[in-house]
């Protein structure tokens, strides 16, 4: 069984369902639109900010503000790509055709990851340029130190969120269960842990908080995060690898 055959088949699968188009375009639209909105608001608010806030003003990061919402659509994309197989029962047909379960899972994830990366990267660049256009005189240039890294990092962040969801979904199989855990986790729990000072030190090692460090160019004043932008991304990658590893292990062991 050549892996290229499985890859081609997975590409047919992913492009032939409506949920792919819906979730990915929703992720792009939400991220860009909310980023533009927040950028406009920030430009108008800048004069009223304290000096400390003005010092830590990060125009690049502001234009990615929409990602907190856009990532939820990415999670839905990642979960559906994997759990569709289970909720429809197609998994039996697929695994009967590809008895090498590792090849099957990783081909599926590879295709979906590539697609998520293309969409994520495009979204990140559009969100940056539109956001900067709204920020007017406070804007950052793509050539400024660290800015290009942050913009590409935005695409990587969205991709990794999707891949993490794929790993979780291949562990849990049910789309409802996977979304029911991932959505509140990324939308609420992670934010709450990050906002309360007692849990802040733990919260910053969660995948989304660590990973979003890559999109920062100007660190907030008094920032004591023990890792840099690439270190944060590495922490996120470790989360993703662990989720994928257990997803693979369970798929290999379980009866389909």
């Amino acid at each position, binding site marked *: *069984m*050549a892996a290229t*055959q*499985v890859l*081609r*088949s*997975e590409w*047919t*699968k992913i492009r*032939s*369902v*409506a*949920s792919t188009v819906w979730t990915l375009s929703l992720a792009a639209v939400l991220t860009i639109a909310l980023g533009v909105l927040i950028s406009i608001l920030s430009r108008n608010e800048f004069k009223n900010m304290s000096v400390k806030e003005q010092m830590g003003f990060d125009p690049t990061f502001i234009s990615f503000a929409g990602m907190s919402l856009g990532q939820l659509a990415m999670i839905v994309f990642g979960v559906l790509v994997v759990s*569709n197989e289970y909720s*429809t*029962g*197609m998994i*039996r*047909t*697929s*695994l*009967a*055709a*590809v*008895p*090498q379960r590792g090849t099957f899972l990783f081909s599926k994830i590879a295709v979906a990851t590539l697609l998520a990366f293309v969409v994520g990267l495009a979204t990140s660049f559009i969100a940056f340029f539109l956001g900067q256009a709204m920020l007017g005189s406070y804007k950052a240039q793509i050539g400024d130190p660290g800015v290009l890294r942050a913009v590409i990092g935005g695409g990587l962040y969205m991709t990794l969120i999707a891949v993490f969801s794929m790993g979780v979904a291949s562990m849990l199989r049910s789309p409802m269960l996977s979304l029911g855990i991932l959505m509140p986790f990324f939308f609420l729990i992670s934010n709450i842990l990050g906002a309360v000072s007692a849990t802040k030190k733990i919260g910053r090692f969660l995948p989304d908080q660590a990973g979003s460090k890559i999109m920062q160019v100007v660190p907030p004043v008094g920032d004591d995060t023990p890792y840099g932008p690439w270190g944060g991304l590495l922490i996120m990658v470790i989360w993703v690898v662990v989720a994928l590893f257990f997803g693979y292990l369970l798929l290999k062991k379980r*009866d*389909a």
Partner: protein
Amino acid sequence: MIEAVGLTKRYGAKTAVYNLSFQVRPGTVTGFLGPNGSGKSTTMRMILGLDQPTTGQVTIGGYPYRKLSNAPRQVGALLDAKAVHGGRHARNHLLCLAQLSGIPARRVDEVLGVVGLQDVAKKRSKGFSLGMGQRLGIAAALLGDPQVLLFDEPVNGLDPEGILWVRNLMKQLASEGRTVFVSSHLMSEMALTAEHLIVIGRGQLLADMSVRDFISHNSADFARVRTPATEPQQREKLTAALTEAGGQVLPEQDGALRVMGLPLPRISDLAHGADVRLWELSPHQASLEEAYMRMTQGAVDYRSTADQRAGLQQQLPPGVMPQQQFPAPGQGQPDWYAPPPPQPQGAQPYAPPQPAPGGPNPYAAPPQQPPTAPAAPAAPAPADLNKPEDPR
């Protein structure tokens, strides 16, 4: 050729399949029968390497499924007609399966034509009826032009034309030298399609033989004899004469006699000798359904009970006697399947299997052993009606 050796599958405490050994040979359609929950689908999944057997193994052409090179080109399967992403249209569903095994897209259009779905190829399978879903599933199984085909309940939901088509397709595939393994609940359909049968009950092998042998081993052919209804003494006279000649005579509900162990001309001669007129003398050939029911009546997990409708019946006005419902003779009578005739060897090879020596048998409860001498037919259903009413 599919070969299972000592196949056992446990899900926690429940044993779904126990010590199953059989062979499915090429060139014939092999039927796979068993009551609901008897382990048919579990066995099919183990053949396809989807479920790992607890012990034992099953091979296709000598290899376990997961070791086959390019399995979809060697084995095609229809497991569940509804296991399709409803938002994907039929052609794309088949296309992604074809690409998995390097089958050209041209072949997808071919099989769509074979199953008659070419006009709905670009329709989402969400809107498909069960019969159309079955056709799509059969198309997927045929995709790789495999030598071994498995079908789990392929005719469910098909119209009569579709059933005929599936029957001819199975026979044609088998006549091309392929191995065809089909499970079904439709006995009349199996009798027409399959040449060989594998019957399981509660996860254990009950029979592995040709359809003809299965019917003759598990059913008693008998003659129905009717004497003039106006003269009951003639009936007794004939019963005595037939019993004396070595026949087994059972009275039937509608006054006829069921005679076993005597050929039809002999019954006629005996009646003539006893000076008894006959209104009917007809041979009765058992059907596959009858033979199957007789064999599996002890191995059925899900049995329906009579609907008591407690508390749902209307109160009758005082003074009115409830109308007793007597079943019309010969109608609505629960069939009673007499035990198979005693085997000449003395052994009963097709009785519920004996515990394997050495290994613990999960079904330690004594199997319902059919009595050797036929008792008077007792309809099973009335026994339930005699139970005391629920005190509620």
